[in-house]
């Protein structure tokens, strides 16, 4: 605990941590489809399902849950899924923690610096998004990448747990090395 305090006593690192967490959360929610865009600008509006309890824990695909409401403003459409936000927030905190640790070790070289392998988790966490039957990133890349579809459908069940394990390992390993 005292070791993490060393990091967060540095206001610059704390600000970076908060910014990175927020940015990664937005990116994560974009890949899950919870953040999307509207064709034209709209007034601020909030809508929640009256039957929200029925869908709160309803899974759309592995590690992605239904939204219970929506907030829209300007061209932004933000579906509110508490479970997706919880998972996204957890991964975001782990990602940004790992990143500021790497930054810390860059400034304070240690005999056994944090391996950059944990950074792989930053990318795998973004590959889990699904639009109907096809991974979001494959749709974004286009039909030329369709041959990857089956591969990622089998892999994606493991992506979120793998991401969390990898980032947690990187974090614990890094914290131990703080002097």
């Amino acid at each position, binding site marked *: 605990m005292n070791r993490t305090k060393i990091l967060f006593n540095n206001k610059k690192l704390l600000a970076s941590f908060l910014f990175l967490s927020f940015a990664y959360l937005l990116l994560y929610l974009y890949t899950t*489809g919870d953040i*999307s*865009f*509207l*064709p034209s600008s709209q007034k601020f509006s909030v809508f929640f*399902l009256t*039957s929200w309890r029925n*869908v709160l824990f*309803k*899974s*759309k*695909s*592995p590690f992605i849950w*239904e*939204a*219970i*409401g*929506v907030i829209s403003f300007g061209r932004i*459409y933000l*579906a*509110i899924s508490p479970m997706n936000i919880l998972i996204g927030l957890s991964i975001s905190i782990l990602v940004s923690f790992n990143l500021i640790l790497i930054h810390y070790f860059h400034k304070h070289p240690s005999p056994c610096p944090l391996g950059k392998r944990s950074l792989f988790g930053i990318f795998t966490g973004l590959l889990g998004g*699904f*639009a*109907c*039957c*096809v*991974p*979001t990133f*494959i*749709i974004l890349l*286009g*039909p*030329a990448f*369709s041959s990857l*579809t*089956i591969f990622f*459908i*089998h892999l*994606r069940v493991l992506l979120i747990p793998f991401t969390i394990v990898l980032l947690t390992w990187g974090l614990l390993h890094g914290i131990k090395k703080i002097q």
Partner: protein
Amino acid sequence: MKHLLIYMLVSITLFSHSYRELRDNVLSGGVPRDGIPPIEKPVYIDTQDAKSFMADDDIVFVWENNGATTIIPQKILVWHEIINDRDNGKNISITYCPLTASVTGYYSATSLGVSGKLLNSNLVMYDRASQSLWPQITGTSISPDTQGKQLDSFSLTWSTWSDSKNTYPNARVLSTDTGIIRNYNKDPYGNYSDSNSYYNRGGAFFPLMSSHDTLLPKTMVRGLISDSDSVAIPWDFIRDKKILNISKGDIVALVLYDERLKGVRAFSRIFEGNVLEFYLEGGKLKDRTFNKIWDYKGESGDFALEEYRGMDAFWFAWSAFYPETEVIDNE
């Protein structure tokens, strides 16, 4: 004896694929059962109210059911793939698979769900009572206990919001009040008007049981099916010819281009024991036997032609299910 052999063949195969082969080729689409949630309690509104969320060139599916007309926006159905509803005391399911661009209606015993599985990239539905699997394009069960059972179908016509509301100003329109949160302004697969999107470019995302390069994979065709024959007619050819009198094997059908909806329709040409031949005269659809004038819905006064079984779909999907299908693209 011949009929017995045909019956035996039909009971173990669906055209050239055996039911076992079909089952073996079912793949996970990566989503759980009803992870793509069907609309269970559809709410309909009038065309005036629907203007708030519809744009003129939005694609819609038009269902004409006994005088009432329903307009179903593609941008809503793409997120749900199935609408379970009731019509005249019967359970009906309107089904759409965005990966194969196929839409059709089925009369179902209970209600249909989205299994989360795919066959030839096509939605595999499941019957909620028996849990049996039914590929959407064939409407035929492939589960061992019910294999070969077929759902009765009805057609929907592809159109645009502009054309459908001008043709049917009093129609009811499926609303966005689906009980599920989705951004109905965004199609997860792209856009039909974008030549670079999934709908217009490349092939299938998932493996196919057979593929044929007679046409480009994403060519839209009207497929027709009988007990032993199948044909596919490209939309462009139908649009050029306006009407086609089809006689291929035991398929005896009229395929026509509906100028009002700018969509395709197909009817049986067998009417009261006669095989009718149709022609256009002064923009009117007529038959040579009775000299009746028929409208786009295949009706002439109290008389009506039977809809021909089949649907519109991407070529790659139709030919994957019906590999021996004949393409009709010249006369």
